């Protein structure tokens, strides 16, 4: 066992501790942490492809053959051959895979899970459908202006992109623009969106990005309140908001379709994410396919979550995770959360100044999404200043707006950087 594998197993156990004892997003961190341990079992190769397993365990003859197929010099290290493989064209890769298969090497089981669940893009989309089927757009429809708060909080995403490229330009890290975009999405506070984007733009960084996204989502009750208190006055925190109007069932049915049409017209790159989200929501609100909606919210999302978590865990393999970049990602991620929170609160203050109906700026922080944790934080901080002021339903508006906002940001990233 290398020291790296040992360290990663300890990190996996640490994630399990946080998930089980501290209740940090346990639904994801239990399978991720466990998958991380499985991925680092020495000699088992569960997280490696057949090709990587052959490189780690193969004899000299096989390695020489592979090197000749990949037109790489035979003295190359494993890393060299992996690199040569990655840069070969598809037919050369196929040839190498044949050699490896004939020598009896197979994909590790976590590698298979990753291919089916994440590389194909299916698991995050299915989870997004389930989240859609659990989302109530009522508060958002009652007060559509809160969509601006969901937009504002996405500033954390783009500020982080700038931070990542800045760190690269001063030589601290080595991120490409695609890497920076994927790292920024951590600030969207939305697990499946972050996984979807990084599987497309920066699959190598998926492990740390997913771990950062879920960990910081769990830390929202610790990260946000100081920022919220620092940026608001006591008087602002006491603002009571007018009660939300009732929303008709028809509006709730039409809204996901409206959103879908807007996406179709303006932002096709966000269509998979927001499309599946809208489908889930439409299944729920239409009231005619309760069977499907229930399954999307239960059996299907649970099954997918297990395999998604294990697949993310497969990216915690030591030689990919233990890297200076991971530290960079973790520190950029928390900055993204902080900036998003601040931007949400500040824009809420601005809207309050220029709008007619009063807005408590504390609900601005809920715009980062992290549903429903961030909305609960808004409510809790509000109650500290005014024990009769329940902001929860008001904060749900920006909260679900934040989900839409970061999916839109994801679409923009993919269309600008991934093309």
């Amino acid at each position: 066992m290398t020291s790296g594998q040992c360290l990663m197993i300890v990190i996996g156990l640490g994630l399990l501790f946080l998930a089980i004892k501290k209740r940090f997003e346990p639904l994801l961190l239990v399978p991720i942490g466990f998958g991380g341990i499985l991925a680092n079992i020495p000699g088992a190769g569960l997280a490696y492809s057949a090709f990587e397993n052959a490189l780690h365990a193969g004899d000299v003859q096989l390695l020489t053959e592979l090197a000749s197929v990949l037109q790489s010099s035979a003295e190359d290290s494993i890393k060299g051959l992996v690199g040569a493989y990655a840069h070969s064209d598809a037919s050369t890769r196929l040839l190498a895979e044949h050699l490896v298969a004939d020598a009896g090497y197979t994909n590790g089981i976590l590698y298979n899970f990753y291919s089916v669940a994440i590389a194909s893009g299916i698991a995050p989309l299915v989870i997004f459908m389930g989240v859609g089927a659990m989302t109530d757009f009522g508060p958002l429809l009652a007060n559509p202006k809160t969509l601006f708060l969901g937009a504002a909080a996405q500033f954390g995403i783009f500020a982080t992109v700038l931070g990542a490229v800045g760190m690269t330009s001063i030589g601290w890290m080595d991120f490409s623009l695609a890497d920076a975009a994927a790292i920024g999405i951590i600030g969207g506070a939305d697990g499946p969106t972050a996984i979807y984007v990084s599987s497309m733009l920066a699959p190598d960084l998926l492990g740390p990005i997913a771990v950062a996204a879920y960990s910081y989502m769990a830390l929202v009750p610790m990260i946000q309140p100081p920022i919220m208190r620092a940026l608001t006055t006591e008087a602002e925190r006491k603002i009571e908001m007018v009660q939300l109007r009732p929303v008709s069932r028809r509006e709730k049915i039409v809204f996901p379709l409206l959103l879908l049409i807007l996406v179709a017209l303006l932002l096709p790159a966000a269509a998979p994410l927001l499309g599946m989200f809208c489908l889930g929501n439409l299944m729920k609100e239409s009231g005619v396919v309760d069977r499907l909606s229930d399954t999307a919210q239960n059996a299907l999302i649970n099954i997918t979550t297990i395999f998604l978590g294990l697949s993310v865990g497969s990216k915690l393999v030591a030689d990919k995770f233990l890297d200076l970049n991971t530290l960079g990602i973790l520190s950029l991620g928390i900055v993204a959360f902080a900036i998003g929170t601040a931007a949400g609160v500040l824009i809420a203050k601005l809207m309050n100044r220029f709008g007619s109906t009063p807005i408590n700026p504390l609900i601005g922080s809920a715009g980062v999404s992290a549903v429903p944790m961030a909305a609960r934080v808004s409510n809790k901080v509000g109650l500290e200043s005014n024990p009769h002021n329940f902001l929860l339903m008001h904060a749900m508006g920006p909260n679900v707006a934040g989900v839409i906002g970061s999916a839109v940001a994801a679409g923009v990233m993919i269309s600008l950087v991934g093309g």
Partner: protein
Amino acid sequence: MQSDIVAQGLELMLYGMGSVVVFLALLVVCTTVMSTTVNRLFPEPLPVRRASRKTAPVEQDEELVAVISAAVHQHRTR
């Protein structure tokens, strides 16, 4: 090249944040129009039905709770 990536990052930030704001602003407008239209053309025939559907079980539950707690009370004070 290193300042180049910063320039690209800046561009991504401006264009990206712009797109998000424009898209969500448009969504605000469309949603408002949609809600107005829907509520004008089809004035709440459904919320009521839904409300009744929702409240029915609640009432039943309340009744059941009342009955059972009455029985419990009776049972205890016997």
